[in-house]
């Protein structure tokens, strides 16, 4: 537990310190939302569907940016080798990186969700509350996936291109389920209606967190 | 024979692709084997030399 907390704290601190890039990230989220507004041309009647779509595009982007950055920073200053050689349990290390990625994504998503609420005419109270489950599960799933994959992609040439190529196909079932769950939530359906989709999301999360924890050691090991 | 061209196209593509892949393997194989024999020969030539470095200069000249 101590190792987990220590690595998590380090990652979050590094992230906060590099505040410069966080602003750029918010700017990018805003602009992506703008593109989606013009692409989808949202009408009130399609409100739920368009907002759900925009939300999940934003989620994937946030995740992509977050995961690569944390890994690249580690590899660049040789920190990763130090962590690998230390007696930290790789699963705990994975957990810490996952938590950091999740926190980072959450921050970006708060901004994106705020923008979506404005641009797509959502209601700040009820709608957001309804979106919370699908959003949380989706973020967790993507963080789990991306943390494992970023460890791989950051060690290859053109690593930041490889990450989306690997991550997005794997994430598709979560996107399908997540968009449907979000859409159902925004359409005012009771939670039960979206429950199959949330179930798939939850299963996805369990699967990938488990896989990540088991396989992380094979990915960070250096010979 | 309605839509025969689609049927023909589908089966043709299947066979063309399979043959192309086999051809790809075939060509690679020839190259690999030449390289392999070359390496094995080099290894044979080097083997008697390596254990005793003192003999090296005699063999080199």
């Amino acid at each position, binding site marked *: 537990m101590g190792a987990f907390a220590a690595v998590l704290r380090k990652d979050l601190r590094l992230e906060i310190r590099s505040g410069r890039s966080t602003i750029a990230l918010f700017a990018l989220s805003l602009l992506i939302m703008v593109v989606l507004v013009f692409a989808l041309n949202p009408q009130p009647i399609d409100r739920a569907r368009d907002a759900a779509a925009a939300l999940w595009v934003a989620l994937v982007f946030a995740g992509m940016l977050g995961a690569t950055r944390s890994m690249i920073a580690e590899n660049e200053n040789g920190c990763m080798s130090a962590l690998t050689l230390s007696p930290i349990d790789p699963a705990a290390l994975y957990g810490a990186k996952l938590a950091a990625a999740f926190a980072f994504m959450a921050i970006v998503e708060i901004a994106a969700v705020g923008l979506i609420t404005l641009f797509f005419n959502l209601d700040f109270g009820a709608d957001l509350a309804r979106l919370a489950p699908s959003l949380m599960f989706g973020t967790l799933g993507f963080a789990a996936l991306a943390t*494992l994959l970023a460890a*791989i992609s950051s*060690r*290859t*040439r*053109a690593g930041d*291109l*490889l990450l989306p*190529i*690997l991550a*997005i*196909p*794997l994430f*598709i*079932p979560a996107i*399908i*389920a997540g968009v*449907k769950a979000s859409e159902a939530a925004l359409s005012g359906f009771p939670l039960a209606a979206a429950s*199959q*989709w949330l179930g*798939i999301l939850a*299963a*996805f999360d369990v*699967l*990938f967190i488990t*896989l990540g924890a088991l*396989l992380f050691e*094979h*990915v960070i*090991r*250096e010979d | *024979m*309605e*839509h*025969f061209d*689609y*049927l023909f*196209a*589908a*089966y043709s*593509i*299947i066979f063309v*692709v*399979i043959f192309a*892949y*086999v051809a790809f*393997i075939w060509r690679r*194989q020839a190259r*690999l*084997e030449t390289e*392999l024999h070359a*390496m*094995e020969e*080099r*290894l044979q030539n*080097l083997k008697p*030399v*390596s254990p005793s*470095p003192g003999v*090296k200069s005699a063999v080199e000249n």
Partner: protein
Amino acid sequence: MKNKIGTALGLMTLGLMLVSLFMVFEWVPTEADQGIVQRIFYFHVPCAWVAFAAFGIVAIAGVFYLWLKDQIWDDLGYAAAEIGMVFCTLVLVTGSLWAKPIWGTWWTWDSRLTTTFILWLLYGGYLMLRAMADDTEEVARFGAVIGIVAALDVPVVILSVRLWRTIHPAVLITRSGEHGLEDPRMVITLLVALAAFTALFGWLLMLRFQQLRTRTRLTILRREVALIEAAVGDY
């Protein structure tokens, strides 16, 4: 020994293929609704079977590689991934060629095509990884991890896509070539084609796998030679 199996598989493939082709074009009756285009089905389905089976092999080889750390498993996995990609592409192409005359569109997001397309993307990711990185032991490990993760993702994909499509079916016509095989000759033709493609898969896998083994041997030899030359060069 190796070459005997290879030749046997090759001959079996040839034989079964010829029988298959005869059955598809001469023996099996034409399907009532779709006409002769429906015959694409008899080779389209086996391609899908091979694509999915190969995927399973990539994953299992990945597990063995991580566990036993023997390069032979990586060679097997890589060969299977390549072949799987080839056949996955064929599924999509033949599927489109079947869809266009029947449904009037080259592509549709029905559950089977969508799932196969996602499988194709997963294969693509694996092969991109191998292509964009040097062939080191580290990359072999990465490949194994990706293979395992992707294979375990597939059931979730199938589930979510099927649910996605039952709630909003894109195409209401079922491809009767698949479920309603009225004539037993159709079933037999399909089974023979499946056998032919299984043999083909085995043969191609054997060829490519042996080739990768040769390549591995070459790499080991290169290293030995380099080591000796370096040792000799020190003096």
